[in-house]
């Protein structure tokens, strides 16, 4: 059994760990509120953008001449995956969940004999993927310096993606991120951004007669690159809210676990202290008896 001194040391060390996790939880909670707010504020932009694109693509009669960003290259050989993760650790299963989702997709692609290219956003994703898919990673981006998620960072990623698309480096592009549902639940998402999936096409009000200036195709070819940045930005916002939510619940758990551990250790400490006292008493009594 550990000595009294050792137990005392362990208790105090667990207590100070608890203090740290508690503080991290508070920080995450405060950041979460902000991240959630900006995620909500960012929604109108991406929704509107989506609507306009849907309206536009509905109006396009000649699908063969549609911009490639919308219709795809007509092939399905090279897949580019943008995996978005956090730059910091200690946020529970946040990164692992995205990576897990992404790995499933990677495996599917590779099993079908297609080429896989990966762009990682955030250092943690790179760390987790470099061992298995190191050769597939063509670019790694990190926004450690930027404090908040901002549109210009997203635009940078978007520009890289579009540049590579223009050079015919890939046919299909998908992004991976965590969608924020609530503090405990974040759902890893896989979203295809090139070619644009227009599954909701039918639901939208058809037959709207718009006047276009300049021509439809010109608007569309200008708008689609912007849409990609917007989608990435949206993903980044969702991701940052998820990261904070995940960190908050992870730290909450850690704090609770530390509390339990302190309780257990204290009981053990008290028991052994009591045992030591009893032992001493017996010694004194038996010493006195022998006189």
């Amino acid at each position: 059994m550990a000595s009294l001194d050792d137990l005392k040391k362990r208790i105090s060390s667990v207590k100070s760990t608890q203090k740290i996790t508690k503080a991290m939880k508070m920080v995450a909670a405060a950041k979460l509120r902000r991240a959630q707010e900006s995620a909500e504020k960012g929604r109108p932009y991406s929704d509107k953008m989506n609507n306009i694109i849907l309206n536009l693509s509905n109006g396009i009669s000649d699908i063969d001449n549609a911009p490639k960003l919308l219709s795809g290259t007509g092939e399905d050989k090279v897949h580019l995956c943008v995996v978005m993760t956090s730059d910091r650790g200690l946020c529970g299963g946040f990164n692992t969940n995205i990576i897990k989702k992404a790995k499933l997709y990677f495996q599917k692609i590779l099993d079908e004999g297609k080429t896989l290219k990966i762009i990682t956003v955030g250092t943690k994703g790179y760390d987790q993927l470099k061992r298995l898919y190191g050769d597939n990673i063509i670019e790694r981006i990190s926004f450690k310096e930027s404090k908040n998620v901002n549109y210009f960072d997203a635009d940078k990623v978007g520009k890289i993606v579009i540049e590579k698309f223009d050079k015919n480096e890939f046919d299909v592009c998908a992004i991976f991120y965590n969608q924020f549902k609530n503090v405990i639940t974040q759902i890893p998402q896989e979203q295809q951004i090139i070619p644009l999936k227009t599954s909701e096409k039918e639901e939208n009000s058809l037959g709207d007669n718009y006047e276009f200036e300049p021509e439809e195709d010109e608007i569309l070819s200008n708008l689609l690159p912007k849409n990609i940045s917007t989608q990435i930005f949206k993903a980044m916002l969702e991701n940052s809210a998820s990261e904070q939510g995940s960190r908050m619940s992870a730290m909450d758990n850690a704090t609770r676990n530390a509390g339990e551990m302190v309780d257990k250790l204290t009981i053990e400490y008290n028991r052994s202290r009591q045992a030591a006292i009893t032992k001493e008493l017996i010694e004194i009594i038996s010493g006195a008896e022998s006189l």
Partner: protein
Amino acid sequence: MSEEYSVEIVNPEKSFLSKNDVTEVVVPAFEGEIGILKDHISIISFLKPGIIKIFSKSGEESFYVNDGIIEFKDNNLSILTSLILNLKDIDKEKISEIQKSAEEELNKPDINDQEKYLLDQKLEVLKSIN
């Protein structure tokens, strides 16, 4: 009959402005300025760098935009833009900053005519407000 309609300006970070008592909006569309009154036909258009003017019951407001898309439908005007500044509380430093980066980009060797045109426009507008 009232001659008012609603306008909403959003940038990626948030909904920048939303008004219900607008009588006219003038936007710097790609092929020239467009003034939009109530019951305009549905339109989608692009913006080039320039000034948006909003006339409403409560007065007139002007904004600088870098780029954007407008959509007008059922008397709702949506303006999506990546950068927008209110001319009333504009920051000279910020303007000079944008101006500088535009000038830098203009000096790059590999820009095409359209980009050059847009940047020229941008500089012109920026100079006029600075």
